[in-house]
């Protein structure tokens, strides 16, 4: 187990991952422990400051070090976790496949010191079953009934996902009930990006997430094909910091466009993905004339 001061240092580094000096100091500690990642921190920091002519030699040195040691760097992670991204050799982004013991796996992943991005993917068998869902059960989301989804997010109950800055549950059959549970899993407000595309959360699930006091710092939100309507867009108003929003393949209508333009984040958006079929001709007109959309985004609606 880690000592308390190390935990504090690692927490600080998760919060400020670009703090050069703090990583340098952390590297010193690793070197004293004989951890090759201490050397890696030295080398990568040197690479960032070195002249182009000297870079290839440093890059070779880094490659050799990584090849020799990387296999041992994931010892603390569960075997089914796939590391998708690293910083100084430490896993920062991890993907895990949904399984009966998903809770244990995720819990273990969250013990890794620098994991801040988590992606949970469906397993192939669930995928096949899921696609066979009939339209009635799909629509059941809108009637507010508990839907017999393949994935029961209650499996994650009790976890604290509050250390994550990015969470990707795309294409999982979460359902509105799953979204409601998801909203209870955050004890702090570090999450900046949430990908819930094709998750079938509908307005009800979106409202539950919007009501979560620890999701107010979201910047990027993917909600493609979730049966969100204008009512759901009004829930989004609670995400005041949004800068990127993807609402494609939702039947928002003109009222949805209107609700979007009334959102407190409308003027701060840098990316807004929507199609004309999502908002209708009148919705397109509203977006093309919106004074409170950034000019670049507004212009894009003028050629739809």
């Amino acid at each position, binding site marked *: 187990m880690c000592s308390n001061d190390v935990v504090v240092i690692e927490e600080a580094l998760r919060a400020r991952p670009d703090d050069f000096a703090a990583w340098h100091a952390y590297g010193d500690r690793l070197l004293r422990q004989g951890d090759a990642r201490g050397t890696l921190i030295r080398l990568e920091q040197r690479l960032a400051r070195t002249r182009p002519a000297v870079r290839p030699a440093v890059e070779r040195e880094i490659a050799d070090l990584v090849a020799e040691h990387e296999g041992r760097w994931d010892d603390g992670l569960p075997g089914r976790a796939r590391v998708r991204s690293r910083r100084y050799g430490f896993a920062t982004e991890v993907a895990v496949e949904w399984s009966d013991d998903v809770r244990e796996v995720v819990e273990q992943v969250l013990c890794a010191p620098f994991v801040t991005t988590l992606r949970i993917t469906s397993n192939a068998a669930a995928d096949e079953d899921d696609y066979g869902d009939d*339209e009635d059960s799909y629509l059941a989301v809108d009637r507010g009934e508990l839907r017999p989804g393949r994935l029961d997010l209650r499996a994650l109950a009790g976890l604290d996902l509050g250390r994550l800055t990015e969470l990707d549950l795309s294409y999982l059959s979460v359902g509105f009930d799953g979204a409601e549970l998801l909203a209870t899993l955050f004890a702090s407000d570090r999450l900046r990006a949430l990908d819930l*595309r*094709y998750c079938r959360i509908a307005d009800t699930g979106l409202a539950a997430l919007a009501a979560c006091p620890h999701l107010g710092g979201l910047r990027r939100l993917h909600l493609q094909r979730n049966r969100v309507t204008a009512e759901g867009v009004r829930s989004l108003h609670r995400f005041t910091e949004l800068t990127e929003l993807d609402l494609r*393949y939702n039947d928002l209508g003109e009222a949805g466009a209107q609700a979007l333009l009334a959102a407190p984040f409308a003027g701060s958006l*840098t990316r807004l993905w929507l199609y004309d079929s999502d908002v209708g001709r009148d919705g397109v007109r509203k977006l093309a004339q919106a004074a409170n959309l950034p*000019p670049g985004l*507004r212009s*894009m609606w*003028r*050629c739809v």
Partner: protein
Amino acid sequence: MSIGLRDRFFALSAGNAPAEEVAVYRAEVDATDAGPAATVDGLEVCWHPSARFKAVRFIDAELVDERVRELFARPSADAPYLAAVFADPHELSFRTFENIVPLDRLLQAVPLEMELTGRREHAEGVFSFSLRLPEQARDRLARLDGMNLYVPPLNAASRGGERFIFHSALLAEALTVAVADALPPSVAEGFSHVNPVFRCNGFEPGDAKFHLHRDTPYYDATRGHISRYTLLLYLTGGTGSPALDLVGGAALGEIGAFTCVIFDQRYEHEGAPYRDGRKVFLRTELIFTAGEVTEAPEIGALFGKACYLTGESVFAPELARHADAYYNQVAAAHWDGWGEGPARETFLHKEFRGVHFVTNGYDFWFPGTDALPPAECAAITLLDYFNCKLGDTAFRALCRTEVVEAEDAGWIPEFLRDKHGHSVMTRVDKSAFFPEPERPHGAICCPFHSTGQFDPTRFDEVVKLYTDAQSFAQAHILPAPILMLGEDVALDPDRFVIQDGLIHVLGKNALTPVNFAACWNDESIPEDYVVVAAKVDVERFLVPPIIYNESAGCRHLRFDFFRNSWMVAHRRATIPVPRITELGWADPEDSRAWRREVDDSLIDDEHPLEPSDLWDDEEDDWDDEDQE
């Protein structure tokens, strides 16, 4: 109603209709509102004249969308492949001011062996010949006058008669052989070919004569070609006083049919109509390899100004006179060096959406303010120079313009000082047009096997088509320096590189599309599921660097057209941006397929696209197949 307007235009153009009838017709045209019926090379056109579409052009009918092609008149019985289209004169740009009618098809099956005989040297550099040619060729050329192709020239106020311009490589080749044999060796040295662009001029007795002028030399810097001699081929004979007067050289009072006159372009000249019949002649130039020609940049600048003022004369007819004076000065300067410039110069002060600038067609001055960066000044310069369309309106028509005459440009900095510029162009993240495709779902089959639950957004074949379509659209949109989003102009500052006093406008940098191919058992096909999300107009420019400096509080740009004119190109293209429809079944009968919206002219080696599998209604007939 519109058919009547169309046909009466040609009836009134051909005959000597009473002025009252013409006036009534013009009033009807002015009272007729009509939208465009087709777009040809970026220019919207209609098949009949209207309040907006007044400038007639003759083009190859195959260039017109076949769905409306039949509406367009074919006024020339001798060249039925030519369709008459009507354009909005405000939308003409330097490429379309002149209507160069393609006439090679007219001469394809005609024997064209020609010989110039009976050479007479009237003065130094002035020769006349008699043209011998087969009867069929003679007849064909003689009928050019009666082909109903005369278009009122933009500078109609400064010259008499009527004229049309045509292109014929076949005629030029035949004349090249004849000229090469007939010219004295000293004159023939360096002779390359006869210019295939001809002007056919027609004058009736009593018409105003073609006023005293010099022919503007043709100059192709990239090929090292320059014109030195003018070639006149008289298709009719007659007597004028004089019919051709070369100042300081020779005067020809009587000219026989199929006389060819070749004269040095240094000669200022004019010509009177025949007294005894219609005078019809062709004019072109003899092109030589340029050799020792040295250029004076001032000549290029003046030529640029002349071209620009010709275009602006649509809005302010009095500018045609200034343009003419510039053309003549350019022509003189080519042979005699740079003499005295005009005493006063013509400037245009323009205001576009609150941005003020001043131009003479070569120099463009903008207020020197941080709010109006050099890249945006360059973009406005290009939009104005090429008269690009913003939405449905040409740039120049969107500008408020006033003509200012002054001794020099000294007044401009003070004039622009209090006219604070501001940005009028948006910045668009072009990649936002291309969201990543969704992750394909392996369990999805075709609509037929999906019993109402087909999700095209995650079906691998559709996703792959979408990726292809994105690659194609990206290859056109990402490199464009300027996008037209409706009436908004979106600038990509990264495509304007400012270095060492030059603004380089970067061209295209094509991306390579990804290609591939797979159970589909449904009437619809995957291509029906990739539809159009938006249509983006891209403006592409192939232009020389724009000379740039800042002085006296102004941003001063110079667009050196003439020295690089043959490298200058501008093309507007409408690029459909793809998306995958959310519909579980895309009815092929009501297809909005992206692939159908792609203009085939946009597909080339740099922008490849797989052939479409979409049904062609005209070629495929299910009923016929069923009957078989």
